[in-house]
């Protein structure tokens, strides 16, 4: 009888201990659900893959270093193969799971899901910097300056640094899609508003393996500068053909030769790997710090990549930095909302992002300038750094710039 009593008491004790531990486990922090859909496989996965790794690593880092205290971020990353239909499916799944913020990727899907974002009233950080994302939209926040702003800023750079008499004659080499075409109209508007250059031709590239005819045509029209807005591989093909034909300028703006420039997705280490020596002197705009220019930010970026076992290619990719950057902005928004005593939900994160300006601007280590958002400005980093390929790496050229004409044509 006594044994039975002891057994009963022991059982009670075990149950009590179990409850105590369970209670401790439940007393842990809250979990904030985020969702990300991007092209890890399929078209543009060369950019999407390191981008996903950047986001994944930074959120791991946030949770491991208890950046949000006991609270953690659970960000599900799914592949959409660059297809809007699959992106929509992923987005619906995330909504079912109760996400508080959404990270998207392509221009097509960001435009395609714009109405859903509005209806759901959820803040979205895409990897697409298409200016059209902001039209009739309140919830899409571009991480950096739009492609339009980048192309216009690059055009201004061409005009300011033009070598030779008269107007700078330029050709645009663009992706055959809305992503490529979007900024061209803004560049034309800038010219109409007084930007002293002549747009001789707008070339929509196909899947050409040889650009000789196109390059010779541009030469026959006295084009001096070719501004690209596409992805790396067609630019690499063009640069290699130009180099083979001896058409590439030896120095910036060399008369009778072609000087090549491009915006965000045309450059980076992948371009150097694809084009080799042919990309020497290529001028590129980007709002991110590059690991070829050592500073505190790039050291942290490389340390993060090392911590999570990423290879050199991913670690040094500006797309890896871009992936980290959106995770940084999302984390910062959560952090600020928490500090303000707000509940972490879609509405409060949206409000917090809109308050990220002036003294409250946020400076992540991945970008060359602060991220600022407001109800009227939803492009994050407004500054652009000009880089140029020197000795097989992108090196800074001067101080960060900002477009003057974008404000005039808006």
């Amino acid at each position: 009888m006594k044994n039975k009593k002891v057994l009963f008491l022991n059982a009670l004790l075990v149950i009590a201990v179990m409850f105590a531990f369970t209670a401790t486990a439940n007393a842990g922090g809250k979990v904030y659900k985020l969702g990300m859909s991007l092209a890890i496989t399929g078209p543009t996965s060369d950019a999407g893959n390191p981008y996903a790794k950047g986001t994944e690593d930074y959120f791991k880092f946030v949770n491991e270093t208890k950046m949000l205290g006991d609270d953690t971020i659970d960000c599900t990353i799914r592949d959409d193969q660059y297809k809007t239909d699959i992106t929509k499916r992923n987005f619906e799944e995330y909504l079912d799971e109760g996400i508080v913020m959404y990270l998207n990727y392509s221009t097509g899907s960001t435009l395609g899901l714009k109405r859903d974002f509005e209806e759901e009233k959820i803040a979205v950080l895409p990897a697409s910097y298409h200016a059209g994302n902001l039209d009739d939209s309140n919830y899409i926040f571009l991480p950096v300056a739009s492609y339009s702003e980048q192309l216009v800023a690059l055009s201004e750079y061409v005009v300011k640094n033009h070598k030779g008499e008269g107007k700078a004659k330029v050709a645009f080499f663009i992706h055959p899609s809305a992503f490529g075409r979007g900024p061209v109209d803004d560049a034309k508007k800038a010219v109409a508003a007084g930007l002293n250059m002549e747009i001789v031709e707008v070339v929509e590239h196909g899947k050409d393996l040889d650009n000789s005819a196109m390059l010779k045509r541009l030469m026959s029209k006295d084009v001096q500068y070719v501004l690209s807005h596409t992805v790396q591989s067609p630019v690499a093909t063009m640069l290699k053909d130009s180099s083979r034909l001896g058409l590439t300028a030896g120095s910036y703006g060399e008369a009778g030769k072609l000087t090549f420039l491009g915006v965000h997705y045309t450059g980076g280490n992948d371009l150097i790997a694809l084009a080799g020596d042919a990309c020497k002197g290529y001028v590129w705009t980007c709002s991110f710090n590059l690991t070829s220019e050592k500073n505190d930010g790039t050291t942290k970026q490389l340390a993060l990549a090392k911590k999570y076992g990423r290879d050199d290619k991913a670690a040094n990719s500006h797309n890896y930095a871009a992936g980290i950057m959106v995770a940084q902005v999302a984390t910062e928004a959560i952090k600020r909302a928490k500090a303000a005593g707000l509940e972490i939900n879609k509405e409060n994160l949206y409000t917090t992002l809109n308050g990220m300006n002036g003294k409250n601007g946020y400076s992540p280590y991945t970008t060359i300038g602060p991220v600022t958002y407001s109800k009227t400005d939803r492009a994050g980093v407004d500054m652009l750094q000009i880089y140029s390929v020197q000795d097989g790496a992108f090196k800074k050229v001067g101080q960060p710039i900002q477009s003057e004409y974008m404000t005039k044509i808006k």
Partner: protein
Amino acid sequence: MSANKWLATGNFFTTYKQEQRTFLTNLDQSFFTFFLVILFGWPLLFELSNKSMLVIDNILIAIVAVMGLNLVTGFAGLISIGHAAFVGIGAYTVASFCRTIGDSHIIITHFWPLLIIFSGFMGAAFGAVVGLPALRLKHLYLAIATLSFQMIFQWVINFMSFFNQGQTIFVGRVFWFTGKVGRKDHYVFWYFVILTVVVILGFGIRNLLKTRYGRSLIAVRDNDRAADAMGMNPGLTKVYAFALSGFFAGVAGALHAYLYRGVGFESFTLHESIGYLAMAIVGGLGTLNGCFWGPVAIKFLDLKVESLAELAGQYLPSSMNLATALKPFTFGLVIVLFLMYEPRGIANWWRIAKSYTKMWPFRY
């Protein structure tokens, strides 16, 4: 006719009328009715997530499209590798209305059933035009003609500013008798609509095949000269096969536009055309139930391969690049395996299973 109307173990037809019955036995009819009740009833009992409903709706739309492809390729024997373009014609018919009169116009939001039917007729008109080369061309040459249509369609959509150069054209939310169909009910609402369309069109094909117009499709497929000698018009038959196929595709396109509340170019590319063809082959060309099996099998295979690639990505981060190849590899492998080992598709497994149960418990 068998004396037992519930269990017929053989063919006992004494009149053509008996043979043309939609259901051979009362048991068939009962099973079908029960199955239909379940299909229409389960969303009222169980609540699925929006994502799952979207997947199911998407499969049902693919079924409508594959029905059309099966009419022209399976029943009439005319290879079409531009079927996604016909689906696109339907979707862009809705999109054109949205661009012209606004996506919240009453025609878009209230008269959507009429617009879906109209989109079907647009698909039929384009189908008839694209089918004209079938008067002169056969086999591979005809396939190239349909490929040309696919290319022309892609080019036009991708470059015309009226079509937003392929970027999404939004479609407004529709109204039902209960009011505006909101986000919460969107996918369930379209499930019922698309399922109704599938049932109506399914019966349409079933009945068509019992008429001389349907039989002439099969006759032309098997031997168009013999069909000609029998008094049929092979040329006209081929053109109307394309027109019918276009109608089904157009309806599928319009449903796609309403389901996704937008029309974008990338849903109607050559890759999608190949996908529809794969669904028709895997399901079983020239069979009605193959139109159901194919989309279900291919769409679920897609989902499973996606999950597999994702799982591989978690354990082997470097396998992300391998994952890129996993989907097209699996897709291609399945088609090759079906063509090699089961050219009659899943529909043949269904036939075998049915004939087994029909004779059960006897072996023959």
